[in-house]
């Protein structure tokens, strides 16, 4: 899994590429929590995600909760069908704000 972080006006955009699973989710978690820790809202771009498992979902949830505690937001953008299936299994599709694109995501956190 690769990741890329860029800073936009409204907050960070974190893009992952590859699979977020037991092997890679600790890295994903670290990246996300660092961004949240810098006090800005986050758009997580999932367009490059092939597979995300429960540990990946757990990283998203943890980051989301941390952001909320700090009065920030964390939204998901460009969620692939596979990732959406997993989010639905966890009934998290109603918890996260899911945007069609990164632009929509930035608008949502702005």
């Amino acid at each position, binding site marked *: 899994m690769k990741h890329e972080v860029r800073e936009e006006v409204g907050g960070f955009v974190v893009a992952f590429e590859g*699979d977020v699973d037991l*092997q890679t989710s600790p890295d994903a978690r670290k990246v996300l929590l660092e961004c949240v820790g810098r006090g800005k809202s986050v758009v997580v771009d999932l367009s490059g995600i092939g*597979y995300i*498992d*429960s540990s990946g979902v757990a990283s998203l*949830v943890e980051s989301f909760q941390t952001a909320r505690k700090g009065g920030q937001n964390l939204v998901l953008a460009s969620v692939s069908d596979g990732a959406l*299936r997993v989010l639905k299994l966890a*009934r998290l599709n109603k918890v996260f704000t899911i945007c069609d694109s990164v632009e929509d995501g930035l608008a949502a956190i702005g």
Partner: protein
Amino acid sequence: MTPNMTLDPATKAHDVSAFDHLELLSEMGRDFTSSQDMAASLVKAVTHITEYVQADGGALFLLDESGENLICEACVGATEITGLTVPSDQGIVGRSVQNHSAEIIRDVQNDQNFYNKVDQETGFTTRSIICAPLRVKDERIGALELINKRSEDGLFSDEDLRLLEAMSASAGLAIHNARQAEALVEQEVLARELELAAEIQRSLLPDARDDDFPVHGVNIPARTVSGDFYDYFELEDGRICFNLGDVSGKGMNAALLMAKTASLFRCLGKTIHQPGRLMALINDEICETSTRGMFVTMIGGIFDPRSGIVRIANAGHEPALFFDHDGACTPFEAEAPPLGITTFLADGDRYPENEFNIGKGSFYIFTDGVTEGYLEDGSELQVEGLTKILMDGRDKSAAARLNDVVDVIQSSGKPIRDDTTLLCLEQKSGPLVTESVEITQKITVANVDQAIEIISLEIPSQPDRLKLVRNFVTQAAGFCDCSDDVTQDVVIAVDEALQNIIRHAYGNRPDGEIKLKLCRTNVNFIVLIQDFADTIDVTKIKPRDLNDLRPGGLGTHFIREVMDEVSFLTPPEGRGNLLKLVKRIA
């Protein structure tokens, strides 16, 4: 022998004694009561009377159901007019019926009401008539008419008329009684049919089981047949399917829909083990064919005695109650409409499900006939009253506790106002891990034997192998022509199961051994995953409560959600864990 039988017929009527008369009447009465054939009895009665009064002919007319026509039901001598229909306000016979009076017409040709069509058609000459109404109290039944006295002048006497009047009154009563008896027989037939329907309904309820079986139920219909039902049955793998439902309305139509719903559950429940999906299929069937406006509220579920896990779906039914070992109560409210209302479900192709571990608690499902049941003081039992009875009886057996509830409702002195049905699920002994796993293994090993092995794999317990396994499973599922959705689900389940082994069974140790075997049957894709870590306590594997947003612990929930069957078998080497995952592919 009747004393006057030998007398000259011409003088007989005048010498009639009260005894003869009574004898004739009682004979007529016996005829009507002993014979199943009313028409034959009528002919016999008319023959007796005609003979007794010495007339050329006699006819008995009965009013039809509408009361608008008089139909000749029996006739002797003179001309055959059986079946002749006259408007009930015409003719001499009609006049007699309308006026409730007996008449003697010595010269019919001068009577403006005389119906002469029969004479014209047959060439018979009617000279005189006596006619008397048949009635019971104010109810008009018909009339009895005699034609032409067998004497030289052919005229009837007043005495003849009085005799006919007396016999008509008796004949009227006899016919009335015979009709009532017929109606009673019909009622009895209907009652018997209803009783047979109730018997078939009772046969749809499961037989009561021993006290140590986890499910018990009771059903008391408010009428002969019931709109409520409950059922439970064991699956081959040892799990138990159960349900309780309430059809809207009462009576025969509700009973028929109950029979249909209960049968669908039993039939489909044997192959579909996800309550939410099962109920959605039943819903489709009922929506497709149900009478408009009828619906069924139902809770369906599946219970695994090995792990203690209960999974239910509630379609518009009263909240079910779960009391944990300490008596704390959790209600399970309906999150979807009753069956038969709409095929559009918020969760797509299934009713929403709830899952919990029963531990040593008790789970109750009941119909509103229970909570709305009357108490002795005229108030309703309500959920509070029900809770109290169940809690007071917590040391009794489940069956005894359910009977306590029924007793309270039945002892109010009032008739039960609605069908009353309760079901209890509990496992006082706790989960049955060891015994049941053996049973499961016997069955599942047999099933796996029939399966074709696709491919096997051994990996070390290292997270970086998961991606390889996912690709491997994807390829194998494709090899078995699994759809993309099925493949995606199997990949999720295998990945999560391996994660659990790596993290929990081996505690992130990298040198653990994991064996994976992929098989297929005609209908299923089967994954067997074996590890060699310490045997885990399956009762402690609890899917996470989805209302709780803490990270982690999701994997088990994912596996159960996406697979049709998840079970732990006893591994062949006697150590470690063997997990079997089954996904339907056809």
